[in-house]
C-alpha cells in the first residue's frame, strides 16, 4: 500500500481511513507493506510493515523543510536539483526512488495507491515491474479546488494514474461521477467503496458539559447550537453557510454557529460574519482535534456539512455518532448513504436556513433526526470495506495472470 500519512501524523481523514482499511484487510489475511514518505513512529501498526521512504520529519511530507537540515540525515534525497527548499515534488521523487529500490527486492501481488501523491510511484511499479495497480481516490483535484480545474500538474498526475490503474476505487458515487466526467475514465473501471468510522471512535470518550459552561448556559437560555467542522477551504462552501446563518438568525436570534477548523478562508469568514452583522452569533474555534472536537459535536444540536464537493465526509458520521441532527449537501458522498438527515444543494442558502430554523423550532424534528441517524452511522463497517477490497484484489490479480 502506498500512502502519504498514518495516524498520529495525519492532517485529516486520509490517514485514518488508510489505517483502518489496512487493519481490516490484515484481519482477513492480507499481508501489507505500507510506505509513508517520512520517518516516524506509528503505534498500533504492528499488523503490517510500515516503511519510511525518506528520513524527513512528518511535518515536511508536503514539502517546506529547509534543505540544509536534510543534509544531516543519513538517507539523502538524491533527486533534488535545487538547493533552497524541499518541494512536494522532491518528496514525491524520493518516494518513487524508494519504491523502485524496494521493488528490486520484493514483488508484491499488487499495489494499492492512495490519492495522487502516490500515483507516480504506483505507475512506476506497473511500468517497470508489471505489478497490477489499484488507484484509490479519496479526493480529486476538482474537489480540492472547489470544482475548478485546480493545479494542472496535479490534474495531469491524477489523469495518468487513473488511466494506468487496473482498477479504481472511489469513496462515493459522487467521486465516481467526477472521475468519469472530468477524467473520462469508463464507469466499469470504477468501483465505489464507502468509508466508515474509525473503530477507535466508539471507545474511551465521555462528554462532560461542566467543561463547557458558556455553551451549556446558551443551551439553557434556549439557544440551538449549529456547528461545522473542517478545513476552511473553498471546497467546504462555508461562505454560503455564513449567508444562510444570517438569514436564519434574522428569524431566530437564538442560534449560535460554531465554525471549527482553520484554513485559507478563515479571515474572509470572520470578516463576512462582521459585515453581515452576526459576529455575536458565530464562534471560531481554530483548529481542533481529539477530545475538543468531540466536545464540539457533543454540545451541538445540528451539524452542517456545507461542502461544494465532498468525496465522502467522515465528519458527518462522527457528528451522527454524537447524536447531532445532520444537514448535508447533496454534493457530499456521505449523503448517498445517510437517509435520516436534511439535505440541500450547496448554493441554496434559503433552504439551508429553512432547515436550520425548522430543526431549531421543532423538538419533534430534532429528536427524530437525532435518534434515527443513530441507527445509520455504523451501517458500513471496515470489515465490509475490506471484504469489498479483497474481491477487487482477486479480480485484478486474476486478470494480471492471463
Amino acid at each position, binding site marked *: 500500500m502506498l500512502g502519504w500519512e498514518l495516524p498520529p501524523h495525519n492532517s485529516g481523514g486520509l490517514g485514518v481511513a488508510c489505517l483502518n482499511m489496512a487493519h481490516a484487510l490484515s484481519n482477513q489475511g492480507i499481508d501489507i507493506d505500507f510506505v509513508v514518505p517520512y520517518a516516524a513512529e506509528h503505534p498500533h501498526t504492528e499488523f503490517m510493515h510500515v516503511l519510511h521512504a525518506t528520513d524527513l520529519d512528518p511535518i515536511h511530507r508536503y514539502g517546506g523543510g529547509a534543505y540544509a537540515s536534510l543534509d544531516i540525515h543519513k538517507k539523502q534525497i538524491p533527486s533534488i536539483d535545487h538547493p533552497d527548499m524541499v518541494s512536494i515534488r522532491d518528496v514525491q521523487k524520493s518516494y518513487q526512488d524508494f519504491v523502485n529500490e524496494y521493488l528490486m527486492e520484493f514483488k508484491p501481488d499488487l499495489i494499492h495507491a492512495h490519492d495522487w501523491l502516490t500515483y507516480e510511484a504506483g505507475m512506476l511499479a506497473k511500468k517497470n515491474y508489471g505489478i497490477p495497480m489499484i488507484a484509490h481516490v479519496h479526493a480529486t483535484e476538482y474537489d480540492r479546488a472547489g470544482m475548478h480545474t485546480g493545479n494542472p500538474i496535479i490534474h495531469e498526475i491524477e489523469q495518468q494514474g487513473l488511466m494506468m490503474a487496473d482498477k479504481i476505487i472511489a469513496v462515493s458515487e459522487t467521486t465516481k461521477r467526477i472521475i468519469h466526467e472530468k477524467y473520462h475514465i469508463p464507469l466499469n473501471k470504477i468501483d465505489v467503496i464507502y468509508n466508515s468510522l474509525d473503530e477507535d471512535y466508539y471507545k474511551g470518550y465521555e462528554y462532560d458539559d461542566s467543561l463547557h459552561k458558556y455553551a451549556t448556559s446558551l443551551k439553557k437560555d434556549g439557544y440551538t447550537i449549529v456547528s461545522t467542522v473542517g478545513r476552511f477551504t473553498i471546497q467546504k462552501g462555508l461562505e454560503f453557510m455564513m449567508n444562510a446563518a444570517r*438569514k436564519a438568525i434574522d428569524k431566530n436570534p437564538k442560534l449560535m454557529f460554531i465554525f471549527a477548523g482553520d484554513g485559507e478562508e478563515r479571515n474572509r469568514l470572520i470578516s463576512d460574519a462582521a459585515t453581515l452583522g452576526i459576529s455575536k452569533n458565530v464562534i471560531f474555534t481554530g483548529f481542533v482535534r481529539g477530545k475538543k472536537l468531540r466536545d464540539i459535536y457533543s454540545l451541538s444540536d445540528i451539524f452542517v456539512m456545507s461542502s461544494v464537493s465532498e468525496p465522502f465526509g467522515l465528519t458527518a458520521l462522527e457528528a451522527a455518532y454524537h447524536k447531532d441532527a445532520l444537514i448535508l449537501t447533496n454534493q457530499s458522498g456521505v449523503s448517498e448513504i445517510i437517509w435520516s438527515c436534511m439535505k440541500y444543494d450547496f448554493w441554496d442558502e434559503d433552504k439551508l436556513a429553512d432547515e436550520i430554523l425548522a430543526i431549531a423550532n421543532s423538538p419533534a424534528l430534532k429528536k427524530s433526526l437525532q435518534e434515527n441517524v443513530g441507527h445509520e452511522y455504523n451501517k458500513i463497517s471496515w470489515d465490509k470495506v475490506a471484504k469489498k477490497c479483497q474481491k477487487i484484489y482477486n479480480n485484478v490479480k486474476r486478470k494480471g495472470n492471463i
Partner: protein
Amino acid sequence: MRAICLYLHIHQPVRYREYPIFDVGNISNYYDDNYNGRQSNKRIFEKVTDKSYRPMLKLLEENMSKHKDFKVSFSITGTWLEQAAKWAPDLITTIRRMVSKGQAEILGETYYHSLAFFQDLEEFEDQVELHSTAIEKIFGVRPQVFRNTELAYNDNLAKWAEEKGYIGILAEGWDKILKGKSPNYVYRPTDCENIKLLLKNYRLSDDIAFRFSNRDWKEWPLTVKKYQNWIDMDCLSGNLINLFMDFETFGEHQWKDTGIFEFMDNFIDSWLSEYDNRFVTVSEACNLMEPDGEISMPETVTWADTERDLSAWDSNDMQKSAMKDLYKIRSKILATNDSKLIADWRHLTTSDHPYSMCTKYWNDGDVHAYFSAYASPYESYMYFMNVLRDIEYRLKLK
C-alpha cells in the same frame, strides 16, 4: 349465486409545495395551482389522468354497456373532485353517467381523506357531511355505505356509522381478526343491530393491486384462467368476493404495458360468462346477504403495510406533533368563518401528509419514498410546519 364486489378508491391529495419559512406571513400560496416543482398538483393529476383515470374509466364504461350486470363501487374524495373539476372535468361526467345508469355506487367518507375520526369527532362529522353534500350535488345520490380513510376501522366507528343510518361499512379482512373465518361473507359489527360489515379479500385483491406485474412472484404472469380458478377455490367458503383496491392500480401502480387493462377486460367477460356469476355494488351486497355472525375489532385496523395499523400515519414524533398542533387550532379556525382559511386548514388534515412523514422504513430507503412527493419525511414535516405557521399567522390577523 356468486358475486364480486369491485370497489375502487379514487383519491389525490392537495399537496403543499416546498413552502419556505421566508414566505410565512408574506404569501399564502401553499397549494398554488401554477406551482411547477416536485409537488405540482396539476402535473401529477394530469399524469395520473392520462395513465389511469381516463383509460380505466373508459374500460369500465364499455363493460357496463356490454354487460348490464357489471357494476362498480367508488369512493371519491373531495380533494380529488376539486382537482378533477379544474383539470379533467370529463372524468366527473363519465362517473355521473355510470351512476345515473345504476351501475356505479359512491361510498361515503371524509371530504379531505383525513383520519379525523381518531383526532376530533366533530371535525370528522363535519368532513363526512361536507363529502355527502358534495356527492349529492355532483352525482345526485347520497352515500349509503361508509368507508373510512385507509379503511381505518374499529368497533366505535361501526357504531357511529349505524347511528348515522349507513347500511354498510368496509374494513380489511385481516387474518388476525377473522381467526379462520372467511372474508367472503357479510358480517355484523359487534354491538350493532342493522349495519353490515364488508371485508376486503386482501389476497385476491393484492394479487391484482400489488403482485400483478411482479416477475419474482412465482405465479407471474397472472392469467384470467388462473385467477378465476383461485376465486372458484375461495368461493368454497362464502360467495361474496370483495375486491377492494386503489383505482390507480390500473395504469399507475401497474403500468399499461404489464397488460393490466387487458387482464381486467377479459376477466369481467369471463366472470360474467358463467351462469349465476354477477357483480354487485356495496349496498347490493349488504341488501342481498344476511350476516354470518359477528365480528369485533376493538383495535383500529387499516389496509396498510404488513402491520395493518395506523403506524404509517401516527407513530413518530413529527407525525404526532404535526397533527396535534393542527387540530389544536380547529375551533379558532372555524370561528373565523373565513371559508378560504378553513379550507386551507382542512387540506392539512389529509392523511397523505403525515404518511409522507413516515420514517418506519426510511433508513432502508424504500417504498414509502415511492409514494411521497417530498425528498424526505423530514422535509415534508418542515414544509408542513411552515404552512401551519402561516395559517396561525393569518388566524392572528383576524
